[in-house]
């Protein structure tokens, strides 16, 4: 097949780097509010009916939203196999915890209302809390670790080895900077969940969500600013050395990498990327204002913009690095040396171009059908079909 020559390898790599961002941002924007609602559940809803209202605001859509996560995993596998191979095995125990929490969530949604005993329902409420809060925290911790570099090296056969004993791999992840990143991620998604509840729920649930969301929104901005300063003065960055081959074979060992003073030197080379952190502050700030003043649709959109800005800022700051190695910088994975083959990237792009618009269209239709607030009356009348 010569068709794939239509697009250069270099361009395809950049496109797939962007699509990786689209998937992560899509995941955070959609499943993010599901996780936020889960983390907020014990605090915004006190009675059983209130909890059912909160759960049913995401009830019909969490399943579709979660596919962003599954597809994210599949797309990383297909487009960035070394990233898939190195990151998930390197974060092994953390991944297990995330998986366990994410498994609790669907089961919690579906099974909670299938029995009426308070002990049963309370148990699932905590499962939903864990299923929302723990992944939100760990995803941020993972980003924090990626920014600092991960202790792996590649053998000449490209087998990934890691430093440290098994428990160190988990405990070592929980360093101060990574925890800060985890808190930013958690508060950001909690704010997003609050914005969603403010739109979809009524009365006390929506009111409590707005109060908590305003606080977590401010914490997000503070934490994000602090992480930025830490990144500027406390963490070394990475840079490619010598001639950069952008369309060579995907073998990370072919390039040379050195540590630099700071990741933030990227803002000197590409000043336009400063727009990403600006959007992160702007979106989150306006979402906080919206929560305080009781605006609904616009608050959710501002919150999405904040998420977009925050996640893009990480990607743009690190470009072209995807997963730097603290143990052996040369093994670091970059956009130019850890993608799939030219043909696979092309085939996957064609598939994405065909199906992504369809997905967006039918997802939008489903949200339209479900438009409107979830009320206590609706939940009790339709008790058999809703959660």
């Amino acid at each position, binding site marked *: *097949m010569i068709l794939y020559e239509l697009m250069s390898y270099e361009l395809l790599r950049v496109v797939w780097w962007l699509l990786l961002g689209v998937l992560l941002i899509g995941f955070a924007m959609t499943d993010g509010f599901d996780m936020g609602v889960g983390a907020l559940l014990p605090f915004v809803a006190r009675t059983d009916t209130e909890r059912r209202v909160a759960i049913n605001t995401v009830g*019909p859509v*969490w*399943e*579709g939203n*979660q*596919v962003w996560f*599954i*597809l994210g*995993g*599949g*797309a990383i*596998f*297909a*487009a960035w*196999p070394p990233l*898939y*191979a*190195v990151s*998930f*095995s390197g974060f092994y*125990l953390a*991944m*297990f915890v995330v*998986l366990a929490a*994410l*498994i609790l*969530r*669907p*089961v919690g949604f*579906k099974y909670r209302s*299938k*029995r009426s005993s308070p002990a049963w329902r309370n148990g699932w409420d905590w499962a939903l809390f864990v299923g929302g809060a723990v992944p939100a925290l760990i995803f941020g911790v993972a980003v924090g670790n990626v920014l600092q570099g991960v202790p792996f090296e590649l053998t000449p*056969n490209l*087998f*990934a080895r*890691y430093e440290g004993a*098994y428990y160190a791999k988990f405990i070592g992840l929980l360093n101060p900077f990574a925890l800060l990143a985890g808190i930013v991620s958690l508060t950001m998604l909690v704010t997003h969940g609050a914005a969603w509840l403010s739109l979809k729920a009524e009365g006390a649930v929506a009111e409590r969500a707005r109060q908590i969301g305003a606080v977590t929104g401010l914490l997000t901005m503070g934490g994000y600013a602090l992480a930025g300063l830490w990144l500027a003065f406390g963490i070394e960055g990475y840079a490619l050395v010598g001639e950069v081959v952008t369309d060579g*074979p*995907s*073998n990370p060992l072919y390039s040379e990498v050195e540590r630099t003073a700071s990741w933030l030197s990227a803002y000197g080379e590409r000043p336009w990327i400063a727009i990403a952190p600006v959007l992160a502050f702007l979106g989150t700030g306006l979402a906080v204002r919206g929560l305080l003043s009781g605006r609904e649709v616009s608050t959710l959109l501002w919150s999405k913009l904040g998420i977009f800005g925050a996640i893009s800022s990480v990607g743009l700051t690190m470009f072209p690095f995807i997963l730097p190695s603290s143990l052996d910088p040369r093994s670091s994975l970059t956009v130019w040396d850890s993608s*799939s*083959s030219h*043909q*696979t990237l092309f*085939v*996957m792009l064609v*598939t*994405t171009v065909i*199906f*992504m618009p369809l*997905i967006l269209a*039918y997802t939008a239709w*489903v949200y339209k*059908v*479900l438009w409107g607030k979830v009320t206590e009356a609706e939940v009790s009348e*339709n008790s*058999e*079909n*809703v959660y």
Partner: protein
Amino acid sequence: MELDVVELSRLQFAMTAMYHFLFVPLTLGLSVIVAIMETVYVMTGRPIWRQMTKFWGTLFGINFVLGVATGITMEFQFGMNWSYYSHYVGDIFGAPLAIEGLMAFFLEATFVGLFFFGWDKLSKVGHLTVTWLVAIGSNFSALWILIANGWMQNPVGAVFNPETMRMEMTSFFEVMFNEVAQAKFVHTVSAGYVTASVFVLGVSAWYLLKDRHVELARRSIAVAASFGLASALSVVVLGDESGYSATHTQRMKLAAMEGMWQTHEAPASFTLVGIPDQEARETRYAVEIPWVMGLIGTRSLTREIPGIEDLVAESDRRIRSGIIAYDALMTIREQRNDTPAEIRETFEEHGGNLGYAFLLLRYVEDPRGASDELIAKAAQDTVPTVWPLFWAFRIMVGLGFGFIAVMVYFFWYASFRAHAYPRWALRAAVAIIPTPWIAAELGWFVAEYGRQPWTVDGVLPTALSVSHLSVQDVLLTLAGFVLFYTVLFVIEMGLMLKYIRKGPTQDVDVTDAWEAQHRRRLLDRGGAPLPAAAPAE
């Protein structure tokens, strides 16, 4: 068995995959059965069919959610436990997994919410469309997963790239239309349909035994028996297609399944039962049916099917050729663009056997230093343990024929005997509910255990595919999964039984009123009175 990372990772993968597949076949089949029921409702307008749709839909939901939840593990476990595998074949294997998400799982998961939440928000036809989209999404999902799995059995459309040390895709169409994948897909979804049919049949039979929900149960049996009959026939016929394609794509697996140690003159006979002896390389007390194996395997009377011993000799040759490829690979990696043309040619010629040289890495650092003895030992490693495959396959096939018989019987009584099922038959229908799951799990066992010692047949040995993890890492997660999954299973079964005992609870009044009125209408016309349905509880 030594508890090393490879064995533990295999155990964990087998456990989580087989657990996942407790829920998948019912999802595949029940989604279609529910969609058929709702179609009848929309076409006839009789509320009983809506009641059936909602009732079976509730059970579908309880099952579906665990399929989804345990599927999350599957998507990430390759990277977690099979890091080198992910690097080595991700260029090909990742694509169908991602396309599954794009094309199928998004469809299924986005609409399944509306299936439950949309009854009052959508028109009749609108809701029916949603239900069918869920069913189509689930089934397409199986297609892409089996394309990925099919490639592990028969790795077509890919070539090794020395510069990136991995397999890379040369033809997406060959990967997609891999004959093994296509045969496996239809076989697997048919197995899912049979599973759901047996499930619906068994639960309905239980209602008839208890004289509850008779109208719902009879109609459900009619749907399950007709759909189940077609599916049971197709699962056997298409299973045979899988066997036929294995004759030329996975010859060692076929020989092991059949306990064929030596190559027999064509047409080979089929060993019905026997006791395979791995040490002595023979199957004791074999009961053989002449010609049958040759006919199934080659669809001819003249072509031979190679036995295990001949295949081992072939592995020996391929290991030696692989060593030459390995040697060339080392030179290419060192000299990159300055590699002499003849070395490249050597690699072209022998590169297809590189994976066989990797079999030696269990014993030596560098395959080039392997002695003849080690080569012979590695060649023997290509033989999977025969007896589990031999028996698993036979039990699966026996169950497959059993399902045909059951479905024919119930189809006959539903169609021509006015649902006058003998009580023993109803009891039997309840008793056999677990059997399709046994058949499905055994089928996967044959497919995956029979592929050993490879993760990708002839390309990458299992022992080489793992991540750099410690035994403690994997033990910890394995224990975690066992504990967690057991709790979830108990909860799921508890809910399933609760909702089966409870029976249909939605639309009961409207259905009863409609049916009563319908009987009166028929009586007014002077027709024979229909047997009264048992009052719903």
